């Protein structure tokens, strides 16, 4: 069920990425598919996150003037890195997720830009400006979307927390009175 919900969220994110720029230019700086890919990676399933990253990236590349596969590459890499971080570090908290999405966005843009330069292409957007705007817009939008998704996936979040923190073994306390009485 969780897979279906994330898949639907990813489809909606790609559709928003396709359409919103036509409505209002600054929406171009929000990377909706990246937000969902990072969210999927934060759930802990790295294989699924990798697939989501690749599919979302290629879908975005299909309607972009950039290289086909550049977004797919960067988002797959991000999905892998974030899922590896999640395996090692506890980030099941909104405040901890903010630096994760910001870092993911920064790295995604750097990899995307770097891949284009490596292939001899030059993106038309100004490097520093586009990077800064994308970082700010995606981090803000990501934080809001995570709040919404957390309320939507509330059951899974609680389940996830239970899995992350296994129940502490409760040691039986010795009764001091009984200890005293043994004497």
């Amino acid at each position, binding site marked *: 069920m969780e897979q279906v919900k994330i898949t639907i969220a990813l489809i909606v994110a790609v559709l928003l*990425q*396709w*359409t919103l*720029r*036509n409505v209002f230019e600054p929406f*171009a*700086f929000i*990377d909706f598919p990246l937000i969902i890919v990072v969210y999927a990676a934060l759930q802990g399933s790295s294989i699924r996150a990798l697939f989501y990253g690749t599919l979302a990236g290629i879908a*975005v*590349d299909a*309607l*972009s*003037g*950039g290289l086909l596969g550049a*977004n797919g590459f960067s988002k797959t890499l991000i999905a892998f890195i974030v899922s590896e971080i999640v395996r090692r570090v506890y980030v099941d908290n909104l405040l901890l997720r903010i630096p994760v999405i910001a870092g993911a966005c920064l790295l995604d*843009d750097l990899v*995307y*830009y770097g891949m*284009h330069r490596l292939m001899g292409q*030059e*993106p*038309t*957007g*100004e490097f520093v400006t*586009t990077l800064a*705007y*994308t970082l700010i817009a995606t981090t803000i939008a990501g934080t809001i979307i995570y709040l919404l998704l957390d309320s939507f996936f509330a059951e899974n979040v609680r389940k996830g927390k239970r899995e992350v923190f296994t129940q502490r073994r409760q040691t039986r306390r010795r009764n001091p009175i009984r200890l005293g009485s043994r004497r």
Partner: protein
Amino acid sequence: MLLLLLGNFALMAFDAREANSQQRVIRVWTQTSADFVQSPVTFVSSAVTNYFSSISSMRTAQSENDALKQRIQELEVEVQNNKSSTFENERLKSLLQLKEEIPYKFLPAQIIGRDTSAWFDTSIINRGSLDGVKLNMPIVTNGGLVGRVTAVSPLTAQISLITKDKSGLGAVIGALGASNALGVVSGSGKKEILEMGYVPGSIEVKVGESVYTTGQDGIYPAGLKLGEVAEVRVGSASEALKIFIQPSAKLSSMQEVAVLLYEPPPRPEFDKSLPNAAKKK
């Protein structure tokens, strides 16, 4: 005694009439005293009646209000439709004007999407290879050249704007054939500004002069208007001028464009044989 006095007084009052109006005084007094009761009662009763009548009228007003709101919405939609029809009419008129200006066949198209990446600024139009659109075909508006087709699918095509295109196109300042100010125009990376290079420093270029394509690039036909000179940076006489051009097409707000069904004439093949080798006949 008191009763008697009161009885007599009542009789007198009953009998007495006012001198002017000839009304019985008792009636006048009764009316006056009744006023002290009637007025507050009327006030309260009218208030209560008004309250209930307003409630009953509120019901009708509510339905009337709903009907009026619906009517307003309908009218707003109608006004909006009229406005968009007017805009569309103007755009189509401008395309008709374009048909008169440009001798080539063209295909009207609508911009249906923008680039999904913030790093690029391409647009998607609703015409594809099924409509006869081919790679590198020029895109124009009534203002002038907009860009070229960079990818084609059966139903849609991707266009790249001249302001973002790094590959240069041949251009001339002033009328083609009458001016020597030939150069190469490419995107400056900035919105709505083109850069022109390779114009010799010895040539005088004025701000406001029109820039046209020369057709030497093998993509765009000659004579398409690019824009007007916005700034000229002059170096030494041996150094090429750096010219900034304001595109004449409104690139940021365009909705309707036209694909110029222009294919450049095939270039003659270069003679690759060695100078001393026998020529094939």
